[in-house]
């Protein structure tokens, strides 16, 4: 692989945000968005590891039809806690709160987010919510499923539901505050010349994500609060025995929790939209379409929630409407995939690790997205709803999509965040391992679903065993794929080669400052006079001078 042969020897900048002050207080009381990103990185890595351990136990348990490891109660707790840890405390904050926090001010040329103290407060709120949930896990666990369907959660479950839902309620405010902060920052903090249509697509994606944070999260917060009240005071909002309506709970729950899927995938799409033009060294194909598709996903995403409820007994008319609307939200996602693919055309493509993740993302997201069409299809949903098909589908979106995006982004910006390079060969190995392991784990689950294996089963009829064993085998490969980056990232902080300000090189503003950036981000306020992802007119990148472009800059051949 013939990249990076004669990199000039860089030295670390003298002053940067990591050495601007020392001591635990300087981290826990920091208002620097870059350090807060590290705090979040610690938090989400913890919950990812926790959720990963639960997942590993689930897969080992399912090796044999009668279950290998644990009792039914424990199994139910494992998948519930896996879901809660992964969704509310890893996936939702992962890209926005880590990469978004670090990058949004840098990308738009600001010194910080609009409300730095609020930003720190968000982290503490997140940790507080996390503590409640960990308390629930430790004292009695949680066995309601991450969906908290009533009246199971509000009446029948014997586990620690109340602290868990209160933890998620609290955590919601972290999302809300982050959303407000990002939206305001993107509106008011842009550097001179950074017009809306010069914004990196990562910013557009986060703007769209903020819309969901702001307008969706409050609903789940109040809903879970009602569940807690119902459970503690024996009220009847969602309990049919007291006149309440369990389907109303599902409406309220999915009003947020379906758009929440877009909270997970939109930022990942933003990451991919940065990586692909950088490693193809050309402007992204159809910038406005990708930007607009982010916004339309965020908006249309709010009109589709009841496709989770086709078989609850909602009215046929509602089911028809929600199915139709669900198909509409697929279009902007398709537009993105086509545009990314088209961007590769006549590019100058390198095989660096972030690019491997990006291409892996396209493949996995494609499968995840297309199988979403199966589930939105009313006639198929009556068969595959609540089977392993659903499990496979959303893991393709959330693990194949969101986590590939998250890891791709971490690899892409790691040199900016730490100033160091990770070992490239190892990183490529990890990327490929992840891709293979992922497909082995979740590919068989599609077949399990088609064969009729329902989800959340701690044991199963013997005809499902072969595929379950295959899936568990894949999971062990997947686990190696996750452990590798944890190891070499940690190693690289200390021993990695110094990266220099712009190792790839990339065109974004964040690459025009030092790596790691100074505490104030930029020594002088940057003025933007170039279009996004423009390699041709960027003499400062030192590219393309010796090699003439292959063809005139025109669009349609």
């Amino acid at each position, binding site marked *: 692989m013939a990249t990076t042969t004669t990199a000039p020897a860089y030295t670390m900048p003298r002053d940067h945000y990591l050495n601007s002050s020392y001591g635990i207080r300087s981290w826990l009381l920091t208002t620097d968005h870059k350090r807060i990103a590290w705090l979040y990185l610690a938090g989400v890595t913890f919950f990812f590891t926790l959720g990963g351990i639960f997942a590993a136990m689930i897969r080992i348990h399912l090796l044999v039809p009668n279950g290998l490891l644990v009792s039914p109660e424990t199994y139910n707790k494992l998948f519930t806690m896996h879901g809660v840890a992964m969704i509310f405390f890893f996936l939702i904050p992962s890209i926005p709160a880590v990469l978004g926090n670090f990058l949004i001010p840098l990308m738009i040329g600001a010194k910080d987010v609009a409300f730095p103290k609020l930003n720190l407060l968000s982290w503490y709120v997140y940790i507080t919510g996390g503590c409640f949930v960990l308390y629930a896990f430790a004292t009695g666990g949680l066995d309601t499923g991450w969906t908290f369907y009533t009246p199971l959660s509000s009446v029948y479950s014997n586990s620690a539901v109340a602290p868990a839902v209160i933890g998620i309620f609290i955590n919601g405010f972290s999302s809300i505050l982050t959303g407000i902060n990002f939206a305001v920052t993107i509106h008011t903090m842009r550097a001179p010349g950074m017009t809306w249509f010069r914004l990196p697509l990562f910013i557009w994606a986060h703007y769209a994500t903020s819309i969901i944070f702001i307008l969706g999260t409050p609903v789940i917060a109040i809903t879970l609060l009602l569940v807690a009240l119902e459970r503690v005071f024996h009220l009847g909002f969602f309990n049919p025995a007291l006149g309440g309506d369990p389907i109303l709970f599902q409406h309220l729950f999915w009003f947020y929790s379906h758009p929440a899927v877009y909270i997970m995938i939109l930022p990942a799409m933003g990451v991919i939209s940065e990586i692909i033009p950088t490693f193809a060294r050309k402007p992204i194909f159809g910038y406005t379409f990708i930007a607009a598709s982010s916004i339309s996903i965020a908006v249309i995403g709010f009109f589709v929630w009841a496709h989770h409820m086709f078989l609850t007994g909602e009215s046929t008319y509602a089911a028809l409407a*929600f199915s139709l609307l669900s198909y509409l939200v697929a279009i902007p996602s398709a537009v993105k995939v086509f545009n990314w693919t088209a961007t590769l055309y006549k590019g100058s493509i390198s095989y660096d690790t972030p690019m491997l993740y990006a291409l892996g993302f396209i493949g996995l997201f494609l499968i995840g997205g297309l199988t979403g069409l199966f589930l939105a299809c009313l006639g198929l949903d009556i068969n595959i709803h609540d089977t392993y098909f659903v499990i496979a589908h959303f893991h393709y979106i959330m693990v194949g999509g969101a986590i590939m995006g998250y890891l791709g982004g971490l690899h892409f910006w790691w040199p900016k965040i730490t100033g160091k390079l990770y070992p490239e060969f190892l990183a490529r190995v990890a990327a490929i391992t992840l891709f293979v392991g992922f497909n082995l784990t979740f590919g068989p689950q599609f077949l399990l679903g088609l064969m009729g294996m329902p989800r959340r089963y701690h044991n199963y009829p013997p005809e499902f065993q072969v595929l379950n064993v295959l899936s568990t085998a894949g999971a062990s490969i997947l686990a190696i794929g996750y452990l590798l980056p944890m190891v070499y990232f940690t190693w690289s902080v200390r021993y990695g080669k110094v990266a220099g300000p712009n190792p790839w090189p990339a065109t974004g503003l964040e690459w025009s400052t030092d790596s790691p950036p100074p505490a104030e981000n930029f020594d002088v306020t940057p003025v933007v006079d170039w279009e996004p992802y423009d390699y041709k007119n960027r003499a400062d990148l030192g590219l393309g001078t010796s090699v003439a472009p292959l063809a005139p800059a025109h669009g349609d051949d």
Partner: protein
Amino acid sequence: MSEHAEHVVSPKIYLLIFAALMVLTVTTAWAATVDLNAYFMGLNIIVALVIATCKASLVVLFFMHAYYSAKRTKLIIICGVFWLAIMLFLTMGDYATRSWEVH
């Protein structure tokens, strides 16, 4: 930014709005004691909500200065209300159309 110079609303307008709000409050309390449902089923609640919306609009537009605010502010208000409407009406749509089913 489209944030233009601040518009100071005079106390006279405030007093006027306040008076209107008082009148509307008394009106809605009185309207509830009249059987409007006799004319049209559900008219009572419709009248109550229309009056409430008038009052809320007055507060938003004048007390909260939305009338004089930047487009961006108006957009946020519209979004908030619109999203609430999505939630209310799509959910109520499910409930309302259940009785249309032919079994």
